[in-house]
């Protein structure tokens, strides 16, 4: 190639690359996640940003720390995406928060990949089962007509005959509003991450 042609191509390449680099901050600042994270930090709203997860953390940490927990979902519909999301947040975040303790969400051997599978497993343990697995507290969730969720925390008695799995302490009713975290909706589990 003639030197002039090569020089021209070099200047074209330099101009194009330099222009892209100069515009890089503008491109990067228009990326939604950066705006969201930076904005929350700038406004000192990091705690608000995390509030969805921390609601779940507070819920599971309110139970005494010396035993495992169980989460039972009553009358949930696996085709309702909001309910599936709620189940995932409670179960997956809750399991992470209390580890090395366990949050039981299904019977042994049940492969769980999503909130829908938790709902469809129809986990409904007896008190004897809860006692055998050394579960001290069981959380019962059910949806209300207005979309909010009701949660009751039941203390599992130390030794009781085999009775139906109903909350033992009706006085411990707590309304837990459904408060989605301020980040993009979680992808379906098993999405090749």
């Amino acid at each position, binding site marked *: *190639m003639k*030197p002039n042609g*090569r*020089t021209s*191509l*070099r200047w*074209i*390449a*330099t101009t*194009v*690359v*330099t*222009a*892209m*680099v100069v*515009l*890089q*901050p503008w*491109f*990067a*600042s*228009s*990326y*939604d*996640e*950066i705006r969201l*994270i*930076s904005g929350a*930090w700038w406004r000192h709203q*990091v705690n608000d*940003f*995390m509030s969805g*997860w921390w609601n779940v953390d507070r819920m599971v940490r309110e139970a005494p720390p010396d035993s495992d927990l169980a989460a039972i979902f009553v009358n949930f519909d696996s085709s309702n995406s909001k309910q599936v999301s709620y189940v995932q947040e409670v179960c*997956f*975040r809750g*399991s*992470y928060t209390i*580890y*090395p303790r366990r949050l*039981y*969400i*299904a019977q*042994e*051997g*049940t*492969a*769980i*990949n*999503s909130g829908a599978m938790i709902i469809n497993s129809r986990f409904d343990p007896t008190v004897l089962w809860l006692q055998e697995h050394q579960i001290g507290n069981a959380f019962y969730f059910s949806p209300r007509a207005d979309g909010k969720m009701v949660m009751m925390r039941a203390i599992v008695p130390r030794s009781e005959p085999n009775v139906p799995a109903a909350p033992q302490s009706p006085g411990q009713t707590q309304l837990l509003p459904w408060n989605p975290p301020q*980040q993009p909706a*979680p*992808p*379906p*589990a*098993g*999405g*090749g*991450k």
Partner: protein
Amino acid sequence: MAEWFWWTLYLLAMLLSGAAVGAVVLSRRRVSAVECAGLLLTLGPGVLSSLLLLASLCGLRPGRTISLLIAAASIITLLILSRRHKLPKVTMPCDFRRTDLLTIPPVLGLAVAGGYVWTMCVAYPLMEWDAIVIWGFKAKVLYYSALTPRPWYFTDLRYNYSHLDYPLLMPMMFAAAYGMMHQINENLARLIMAILYIGQMPLVYVGARMFLPRVQSLLITVLVLGAGYTVGQTLMGTPDIIVATYVAGTTVYVLRWIQLRQTCDVVLAALFAIFAGITKNEGLPLAGVTAAVICGLALREQHVGCWKDAAIFCGIIVVGLGIWLLWRAGIPHTDENYPAQLRWSVLTSNAARIPIIFRAALREMANLSYWGGLWILVPILAVIGYRGWTDTRTIALWILLVAHLGIYVLVYVITPWEIRELIRVSMDRLLIHAAPVAGLVIAAHWGSLMTSETNEVGSWECGVNG
């Protein structure tokens, strides 16, 4: 404040581990200060976490004692090498020109990006779904239990949503931080991501310097590390930036091996390939692709030294990745299990997915807010800098890039998941892994347009690639 003290000790242990391994591999070689910094920041976390994984396999949880013992062993190694005058010679750039003033803006830009990532990593705990449920969860498992005996988590299918068989390097990086601080401090542990993000900068720069002068090499580095999606995903806490960093390291040292045929370069490339393979599953086939490139070049050369280097590379990755694959064999694989899906019948029945995959990939690559001009510049420079096609290193880069992306296309073809949904949640992350290679492809073609007057690359006599 105590957690900051222990975290600083953890950082020192990482840097010392990286320094010891780097010094052993690069014994008596001339190494630029920039490359030295890159190796410290990237080798260190990988070496320390790999050693802690081995210790965990032997029944030892990550903690202060073992991390500090590794640091002490690293110091002893460095002292022995120093006494025997076998340390690498770190060189500083010595031939400054007036045009080097133009390096100030990109250096400032990289410093701002690094500072931003560092600040945001400390400000936030783990906040992204996968970062918590998959990687953060494993970090807690490794913090509380050694891998031997195998913790119940890895065989309980009720935790299958967290991908029981995913690799453990990043979780161990976090677990080691927790072990040093004696607490689950996600904010400080997330600084590992910032360290590896910053560590990728010198690696990409060193790779680009094989083709370009300083200023242009810095522009390539800004192009790769300043992409919005790369910065954003580093903050999310998923290990994609870690894989990208180790892919960058593998690629850079493969390129240098092609150029100089030094055994130390294949050793470093193999180490980085192992780290990529035990960070995410995507790193496993990439190690195979890299081995194929090195073996292919060695066969073409028909030189005993090249065959020896290829055998060393393959031997190191077989041992390193083999240990992980052996341990992983005992874990249930119930959701994806892609090797079992790799059948001709699956390929032919899902062939209609290929146009969908390519359209989605092109749409993704053209997204300026995600990638800036990085992926758009690859074909442009490939045409403008057509002289680059005569360079073996450029061909090797293209083989690595095409094979890298081709593996992902294959995975999308055989995946059992709904393809559009999977592309929506994963394709952008996969492109982060290949971004450093794309940047080096641009550098290779751009460099081919440089004349001997404009190009002062590879100044091996003074400040090697500095």
